[in-house]
């Protein structure tokens, strides 16, 4: 899995450079979560929704590692006629649902979980959300419903990298105390290091009966590249050639 993680990060950096696209920090913070989901957790019948659709490139790079899409398709990122929208698209093999406007993924996941539960089907539903999405009303509407209907087949992962689009989360609209908010909504809540593979795996395989599962994954925006980490600039900026070279050297060393 470590090779997967190195390759996903490398491809994110190269393709963001090539496409001159945004959201590199948001992509780098979820690499371990995606790697664990796609290597260890997701079964064929399960569903995964990337609600933070702006981190599409991280998912495309993961889908390439898992052979859902070819290198040719992956390398089309940022080119004219490409199907790889910068916000995740269901036209891409392996993508369950298109997102891009925040706050949509959870209600979709709740609907799927409700359908499986009411039909006594054992499929599980996973949704990966951003901390910025905690601002959305639909997040709390969806949680109320999921909790009321005891949707224990629903697994919500929050990529809590503490930085949203314009600034640090606690400077935009504070969301703390986050854990107690989820607890008060009737969820089973675990708080983990979102870059620790064992911790992610352990949190994803444990669940509590009759409660939706929430994993608050503490992550670092821009993880893996020292000058991108915890720097809001990399929500928008793409690396120049020199920055790309420096970042690739760092990734090669850290994830050897």
């Amino acid at each position, binding site marked *: 899995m470590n090779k997967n993680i190195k390759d996903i990060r490398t491809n994110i950096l190269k393709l963001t450079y090539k496409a001159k696209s945004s959201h590199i920090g948001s992509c780098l913070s979820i690499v371990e979560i995606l790697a664990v989901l796609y290597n260890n957790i997701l079964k064929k019948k399960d569903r995964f929704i990337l609600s933070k659709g702006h981190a599409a490139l991280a998912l495309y790079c993961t889908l390439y590692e898992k052979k859902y899409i070819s290198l040719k398709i992956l390398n089309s990122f940022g080119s004219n006629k490409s199907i790889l929208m910068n916000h995740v698209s*269901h036209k891409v093999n392996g993508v369950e*649902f*298109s*997102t*891009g*406007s925040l*706050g*949509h993924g*959870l*209600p*979709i*996941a*709740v*609907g*799927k*979980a*409700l*359908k*499986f539960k*009411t039909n006594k089907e054992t499929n599980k539903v996973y949704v990966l959300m951003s901390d910025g999405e905690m601002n959305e*009303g*639909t997040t709390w*509407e*969806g949680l*109320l*419903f999921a909790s009321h*209907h005891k949707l224990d087949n629903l697994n919500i992962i929050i990529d809590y990298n503490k930085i949203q689009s314009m600034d640090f989360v606690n400077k935009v609209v504070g969301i703390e105390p986050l854990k107690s908010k989820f607890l008060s909504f009737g969820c089973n809540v675990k708080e983990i290091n979102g870059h620790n593979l064992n911790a992610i795996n352990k949190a994803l395989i444990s669940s509590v009966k009759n409660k939706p599962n929430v994993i608050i994954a503490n992550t670092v925006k821009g993880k893996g590249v020292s000058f991108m980490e915890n720097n809001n600039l990399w929500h928008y900026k793409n690396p120049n050639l020199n920055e790309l070279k420096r970042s690739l050297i760092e990734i090669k060393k850290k994830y050897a």
Partner: protein
Amino acid sequence: MRKLFIKELLKSNKNKKNYLLINDLGYNVIEPFKKKYPDRIFNAGVSEQNMMGMAAGIASENCNVFVYSIANFSTFRCAEQIRNDVDYHKLPVTIVSVGSGVGYGNLGYTHHALQDYALMRSFPNMQILSPGNNNELIALLNYTQKNPQPSYLRLDKTEHKEVEFKKIPVSPGGIVKLIDGNKKKILLTTGSIQSLAKNIKLKKYKNYSLYSMPIWGMKAKNKAKNIIKKFDEIITIEDHFYDGGFGSWLKECINDTNIKTKIKSKYIRPEVINEVGSREYLLKKFGPK
């Protein structure tokens, strides 16, 4: 039309693939469905955006979902969920809105559906289903279940008198003859204003024929274009603003063509209605004449 809608939905749910979602309303309407299929109806509470997202989620798992609500709640309140989740993914969600036009006259402007066509017809995959009588409603429900796709079903709040069942052929952009008359000059209506359209025809347009178009939308324009060209004059009648409404849609159908058909439109006066009253009162004052 609400009760007939539920009655017909019950009939067609033998495979239990139909889900009904409500947002804490539907008193004295949805109960028969709840009694027969308690595990296929969910009250989302007062949360329309979550309800529409869930509808898309359920529909994406090979089910047909009916989202039942009043006027603007199942449309404008969750417009982006309809755009991105339902229409973009082309999912079989039928958005049911009760209280077309000024059906909820006394409840005030918040409850009047005067811009809903404008919103719903702007989505490429969405078909507008606008029944003007019970037979049209039955035909539309049969059609949408045989052709599951994003649909907007606009229902009259008023219950129509049961009439003898008559099978009506409906298709996108197709017209249904209501009263025979002149072969080249017609009145064309859609949805719940059909009885008023009949009155207008009988009083002011005695020689014209009267037709309805129960299914239309962005994709139906080509079909409608071929029907429009058969006539010299069409006067549309609707309980909606002209902007984004049925009449303007019909004119868009022949834009950039050589079709010479003259199209005129009758609609709700384009302003915020600042007074309340019965549906009849409001239609008389603000409606098409």
